């Protein structure tokens, strides 16, 4: 397939791997966080980690939209479907995230909730137009990648005068999460992850550009290399990070030049700004309350805000006691450090959110990696 196969070429991968082996110094460790679940997925699916020398360690970051959604937010969506008679539309991955009382959206659906999987926010609006006698709520999740489409349908609904459509907005902001990880306000309690650089987001950066990462390079002295989601992109970015570290540089570099510009997609940014404003604080699974890290609808579009329309009140719910998703999302622990991993928590029966999406660190580790971890005993 054109424009895809070129970035999955095994021979080039081995050439880059050889450069990485040659340039990574043996007397130190390189700890890089790949922020995005898309990168985590590429690392596991293509076995990139196998090609890296042991002193280059990849730490999974919190950039999996489904993983960072706290239980209380899913509970709100379930409340809408089961008790307020609304049709709840959402993206596929969200369906299986565990919520309170052993529920998830897919289980709430089996209990009679009208919950529909959609591929785009526009489908939710279309459904609202087709079923004028029902309330339709779009459960909007994701980083800056999925935010502009939500903004667009809100404006469309407004223009078309659609009365029965609203959005349960859970859109979150990437730079705030990175700042939070670097600042690690709860480092005392939960331990802090030592990092030597970031593989910066791919699709998010198409929207926001490479500029927003400059403070991490300048203020926190963290090298950042923005990379695409194909395996060769990630490998090239790792090589670029190693070079920055070796040369004592901390800059924002862009490996993903075929899509990312310094200032990003200005039209999309304008659209987001028209429809949304930044929340004072938002709870992330794993990171806890993070100030200025999420969006809500502006007053002008209050009629489309499901939280106001249905008078919903967010209730924080603690994760399962033994679940390490929090520490894993902060990069402090690895999936295999969790007692539940692969025992009670599996992709079929996820206890924590990292086991749900194929971009989640635990799910990727389980699907592609667990063969290498389970000791093989002679039968």
């Amino acid at each position, binding site marked *: 397939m054109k424009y895809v196969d070129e970035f999955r070429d095994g021979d080039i991968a081995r050439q880059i791997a050889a450069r990485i082996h040659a340039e990574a110094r043996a007397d130190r460790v390189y700890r890089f966080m790949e922020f995005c679940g898309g990168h985590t997925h590429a690392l596991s699916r293509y*076995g990139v980690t196998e090609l890296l020398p042991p002193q280059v360690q990849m730490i999974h970051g919190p950039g999996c939209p489904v993983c960072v959604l706290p239980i209380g937010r899913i509970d709100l969506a379930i409340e809408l479907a089961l008790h307020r008679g609304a049709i709840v539309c959402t*993206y596929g991955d969200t369906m299986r995230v565990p919520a309170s009382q052993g529920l998830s959206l897919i289980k709430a659906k089996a209990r009679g909730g009208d919950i529909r999987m959609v591929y785009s926010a526009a489908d939710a609006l279309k459904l609202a137009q087709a079923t004028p006698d029902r309330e339709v709520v779009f459960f909007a999740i994701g980083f800056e990648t999925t935010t502009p489409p939500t903004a667009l349908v809100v404006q469309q609904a407004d223009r078309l005068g659609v009365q029965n459509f609203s959005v349960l907005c859970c859109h979150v902001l990437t730079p705030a999460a990175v700042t939070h990880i670097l600042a690690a306000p709860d480092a005392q309690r939960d331990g802090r992850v030592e990092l030597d650089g970031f593989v910066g987001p791919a699709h998010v950066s198409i929207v926001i550009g490479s500029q927003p990462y400059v403070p991490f390079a300048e203020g926190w002295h963290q090298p950042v290399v923005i990379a695409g989601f194909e395996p060769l992109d990630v490998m090239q970015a790792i090589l670029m990070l190693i070079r920055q570290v070796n040369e004592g540089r901390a800059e924002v570099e862009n490996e993903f030049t075929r899509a990312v510009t310094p200032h990003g997609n200005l039209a999309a940014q304008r659209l987001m700004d028209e429809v949304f404003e930044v929340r004072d604080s938002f709870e992330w699974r794993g990171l806890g309350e993070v100030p200025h890290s999420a969006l809500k609808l502006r007053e002008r579009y209050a009629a489309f805000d499901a939280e106001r329309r249905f008078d919903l009140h967010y209730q924080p719910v603690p994760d399962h006691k033994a679940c390490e998703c929090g520490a894993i999302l902060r990069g402090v622990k690895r999936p295999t450090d969790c007692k539940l991993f692969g025992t009670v928590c599996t992709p079929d029966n996820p206890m924590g959110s990292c086991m749900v999406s194929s971009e989640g660190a635990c799910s990727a580790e389980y699907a592609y990696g667990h063969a290498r971890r389970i000791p093989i005993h002679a039968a």
Partner: protein
Amino acid sequence: MATRPRYIRPLDFKAGRIDMSHGAGGRASAQLIEELFMPAFANEWLAQGHDGATFAPPPELAQGGQLVMATDAHVVSPIFFPGGDLGCLSVHGTINDVAMSGARPLYLSASFIIEEGYPLSDLRRLVQSMAQASHEAGVPIITGDTKVVEQGKGDGVFISTTGVGVTYPGLRIDGRQAQPGDVVFVSGTLGDHGVAVLSQRESLAFETTICSDTAALHTLVADLVAAAGPGLHVLRDPTRGGLATTLNEIAQQSGCGIHIDERALPVAPEVEAACELLGLDPLYVANEGKLIAICAPQAAARVQEALLAHPLGRGAQRIGEVVADAQCFVQMRTRFGGTRMVDWLTGEQLPRIC
């Protein structure tokens, strides 16, 4: 005024719809059978008109062949999709289940659960499609049943079919027969059916030329049996859950591992592109006209030849081998040069969003 005794107005196949009386067992039910099912499926066993069909034992029984029975419920949505429909799918699916047991399919039964209000024109299309599929396969539908459920209690039409067949004498085709060293073949491109159906879903409709691969595989099986005999160890059609799930089933049953090579997997470019776009993995997408054949290494050349010689095996590829592995893992050598686990399908394959 002259009346015509026993006159019944014929079914309106243009604008008519199924109503509750068609499932009540009275005159309307009888009319539906007489005007729709009987002429479409016409065969001597159906003509017996009994509650069940009586048939003679197949000759293979005397030579040590065994009877095989398989059943399959079909609930595809949408009911009509590019390359097929629920009707022919329900015939092919069960014929294939019988054939994958290393058997020659003999007869089918069919039961219909129809939702009140379903258009008779669509029902007729489905029944004709079934009749054609059954006729082409040479496997008659010899008994059946119809029930009607109230509107909202079904999704148009559900069709369950059951098949009876007889195994090829002296042959044991079974998931447990896979042995280390065996060679794994797939008969053609993967994921066509799943992507063709997905492309028509209301929420997702996208333009594509991909057609479902739905087909009856029993003649291909007959050719493979003739070519490889006891060298043929396992046959399986990778339907729901796709190739990945089917290989895991076989690994589990045989107590072996399976290694496959991503570079050898046949996937049509359109299917690959659609999967890439939707965040699906063709390894997990359903097929309805493909089979996996696992055979002894000595029989591999003959199996390959038989596959390639058959119209339904033209795209066949040798994709891997069975290995000794107490963990029963299915692993894949990726195009990228690494290896990765190929696990069971979890839940329903859901598209990724980011």
